[in-house]
Structure formats: C-alpha cells, structure tokens
C-alpha cells in the first residue's frame, strides 16, 4: 500500500472552511449559520434526522447548491476559484442518468479521470481504474452494465470512481442507505482503507452504526436556536443517542472484519 499521493497533497491548511453558511429554499432556511472547519485526515459523519439539511450542507460545501450567504473555502481557495478538482471525490447516492444508455462499470470508473485537464490525454488510465475496482472488489464486474449491479455494488462503483480519480478528499452522500448489511460492512471496509491512507472523509449518514469506529468527529444537524449545528465533537454514544443519531439496530462490527487495502492512486 502506498500513500505517496495522499502525502503529496497533505498541507497544513483546512480542507473545508465553512463560515456562516446559509442555504434557503423558497424562504425556508435549510442550512442555518454553519461554521465548520475540517482538517486533513478527519473522518466526519454528518448526522441528523431527515430534512435537517445534511445533504444540502455537503452539496453547498462542494458548490453544487448555492449559498444564500456565508462562504466556503476548499483546500484554502474560495469555492468560486477552486481549480484542483482532482483532489475531490464526490460520491452521490446514485447517478442521475444511470441506465439511459448502457454504461459499463469500467466506463463509469474511468470517467473520473476525464476532466478539462485530461482532454488531450488519450491513455485510459487503465491501471488506476483496475486498482480502484479491485479495491472495492468489483473488478470481475468491470464489463457489466452499471444498472445490472445491486444498489450496494453501484455505491461501491461510485467509490471506486472517486478512488480512480486520485482524490484525497472524499464526500459521500448516504453511502449506507438502503443497502443490505453485507454490502454495508463491505462499504465500511472500503472507507476504513480510505481513512488509513490519510484521506479526509465527510460522510452524510443517519446510520452511524456501520461506521462508528471510523468516525473521528460527528456533526449533528437540526433546527437549533443558534443555527443548524446541534452537536460538533467526538462521536460519543451518549451524545449521539441524545440527538437520535445512534441507531443500535444498524450497528455492525467492522472492527472484526478483515481490512481491505485501499490505495490512493496517482491522478
């Protein structure tokens, strides 16, 4: 396992600096006065009940949802002028247009490397794609249509996509939602690999169970008197249970599972 890429990108500055961020939809304040600094190597779980703005917050942190006021800096640069997108691995719950035209697993993963900077680089980055797909144990399914895979497998393909792109900052939206427990534990293994390779990980979830021993910091969102953040600190069981953010039924024991090596790849 090599961590060169992660180390090459390690800097002292914050990965995300969010200052007084607000997002309003039709006059309704979905994200309210969020101040947040996430440092390199943190594994942050963004928790909260449905409708508390978890997904909206991380989308705003990536510039996908506009802020009504406040600001976000990404790796030190204001979001509007941030250029180093190769460092960011965004993993949505599903692809927006999955299945309209058959798209193979390999194509979806390789497409992480197709940005403006790779416009004239004709090589397929085959090695990165293979390594990423092996990391999530889906290399055997590389030529299959993405939409023939199970929900959990598709989620792992999207994680492989972020890995292949050479990211060191991962933002995952509900990676464990709606998938079976076996897939959840496999996902937890993949995320453990990311953590061990020094990546910064932000996970939106309302099921901390599967990730409980990976998370270094919990952010509980809700409608509080002083804004959206109800709790920001270590993932202490009693604190999270108090905020209904600890689900015993979803709990797994990832510590007992073997660790799959996940490598951050050269971009």
């Amino acid at each position: 396992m090599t961590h060169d890429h992660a180390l090459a990108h390690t800097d002292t500055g914050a990965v995300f600096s969010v200052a007084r961020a607000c997002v309003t939809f039709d006059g309704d304040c979905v994200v309210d006065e969020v101040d947040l600094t996430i440092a390199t190597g943190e594994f942050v779980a963004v928790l909260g009940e449905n409708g508390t703005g978890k997904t909206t917050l991380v989308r705003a942190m990536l510039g996908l949802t506009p802020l009504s006021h406040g600001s976000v800096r990404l790796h030190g640069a204001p979001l509007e002028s941030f250029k180093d997108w190769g460092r960011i691995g965004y993993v949505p719950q599903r692809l927006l247009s999955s299945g309209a035209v058959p798209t193979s697993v390999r194509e979806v993963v390789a497409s992480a490397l197709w940005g403006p900077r790779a416009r004239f680089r004709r090589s397929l980055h085959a090695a990165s794609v293979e390594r990423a797909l092996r990391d999530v144990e889906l290399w055997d399914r590389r030529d299959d249509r993405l939409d023939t895979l199970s929900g959990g497998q598709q989620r792992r393909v999207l994680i492989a996509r972020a890995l292949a792109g050479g990211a060191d900052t991962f933002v995952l939206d509900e990676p464990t939602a709606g998938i079976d427990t076996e897939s959840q534990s496999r996902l937890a293994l993949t995320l453990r690999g990311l953590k061990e390779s020094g990546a910064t990980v932000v996970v939106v979830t309302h099921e901390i169970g599967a990730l409980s021993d990976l998370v270094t910091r919990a952010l509980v969102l809700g409608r509080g008197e002083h804004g959206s953040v109800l709790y920001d600190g270590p993932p202490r069981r009693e604190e999270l249970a108090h905020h209904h953010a600890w689900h015993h039924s979803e709990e797994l024991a990832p510590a007992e599972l073997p660790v799959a090596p996940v490598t951050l790849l050269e971009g």
Partner: protein
Amino acid sequence: MPLLQYDFLQRALVAAAIVGLVAPIIGVFLVQRRLALLGDGMGHVALAGVGIAFLFGTAPVPTALVAAAVGAVVIELIRAKSRTAGDLALALIFYGGIAGGVMFTYLAGGKSSAALNQYLFGSLSTVSTTDLAWLAVVALVVVAVIATFGREIFVMALDPDLARTQGIRVTAMSMLLTVLAALTVVIGMRTVGLLLVSAIMIVPVAAAQQLTRGFRTTAMVGIVVGELSAVLGLVSSYRLDVPPGPAIVMVALLMFGLCSALAVPVRRRRAHSAASTADTAADNEPSGVHA
C-alpha cells in the same frame, strides 16, 4: 451497381453515408441526457431557416445552419434558467419554427412550396456538390468537437453534479451538445428530411443498446446501424420511388426490431457465461480466505 451511374444518386448516397455516421454519435449523448426528442425540435427550428432562405433567396443549407445553431443557443439559455419554463419555452420555439418555416416558404412563392416536401422528408435529387461540401465540413467539425470534448460531455450527461466536482463546465458542455445536435439536423436535412432527421440520431442508438453493455460500444454499433439504415434506405427509396427519409427510418426501425430479437439469445448467453465464471471462481477460491 446501376444506381451509381447517376451523379445525383452518388451525391445522395455520400450525403446519406455522412448522416449515418454522424447522427448516432450525437444521438448516443442525447439519449444519455434523456433528450431524445431534442432533435425533432431542432428540425422544426431549421425549417424556419429554410423558409427564410426561400424568402430572401439565400442558400438553404447555411441559412438553416445559422437558424438551428441560434435556436440551440437560445434553448440552452432558457433551459439553464429554469427547467419548467424551459420545457414550455422549447415547445413555443419548436412550434414557431415549423409555423414560420412553412409560412415563409409559401410567402416566397414560386417553386419553393413544392420544394418544402423535399426538406421535410428528404430528396434523392436535390443534393448539390456545394451542399455535399457543406455537409462534409460540418460533419468534420462535429466529429472533431466530439473527439475533443466527448468525454466531458459524457460525464455531464452521466451526472451533471459529478461533472461539476471534476471541474467540467457543465453549462458549456450542455450548450455544445445542443449546438452539435442542431448541426447534425442540418446535415440530415437533405437526405432524411427535417421531420425525420431526429429518428436517424435516436433509432440506431435504441437498436444498438439492445445488444451492448457499454457506452462506447453502443456508439460504435449505433454507427454501424446508422450507416446500414442510411445506405439501404436510400437504395430502397430509389427502387420503391418514395422519399428517402421515410425509407431510411423504416430500415432503421427494422434493424431495431432485429436487434431486439437478437438481444434475447445474447443476454441468455451472457447470463450463462457469467454463471459459469462465478462457479469457476467459487471453485478456485480457497475456503475461508477472503479473495
């Protein structure tokens, strides 16, 4: 082949071959973006260009090209602003295009109203050498742009949010795709006609995806289906004495039927080979060891 004795048929055949190649390349991206009907609308807008050309006595192909490209830009700007308003605005622009096209053509008088059918359903006899040169240049531009930006357009069509987090300029790529669709419509105008040109962008892709598992192979098989439809359709148009557009689209639809019929055994064989691979993998995997 006696067909090739006539210069006008040679030109029509080359024009059809160009459409058969270019249309599915753009069509595969349009289907991925769930904009399969966009080409129809662009055809209507291009018709307004043809009408204007008749009215002012300019050359139809370049005028239609400008009308379709301007229409594409306007449509994208409206779509970018609001999805709901965009849907309605699209309808207004498309109706305006066809109504304006027909009205201008009749206002121009003379032979132009008789020529209208040739633009709506294609014609074997009207492709001039100048037209052919225009088509070839526009086709080259479309292919060159896809060769350069195709991968970014693919990511944008797959998921615009993912594309944004890769630093891809989503609005620009979306605009580019719509303009390319407009250019492709004009390429198909002479042989397939503006009412059916969208079919040669979409039907070959629909046929191809019955058999394929990847985007690139869908595009490749789509091109083969597109070429076969264009050439066979043109030949049967000559033999049956019908306009080429409907003949080309009927052949494409037949090929869609053929591919759908082939899809059943192909999928069964794939499922079978996947099952036997899984069996072999299970046999080879040492028990208790995580592969």
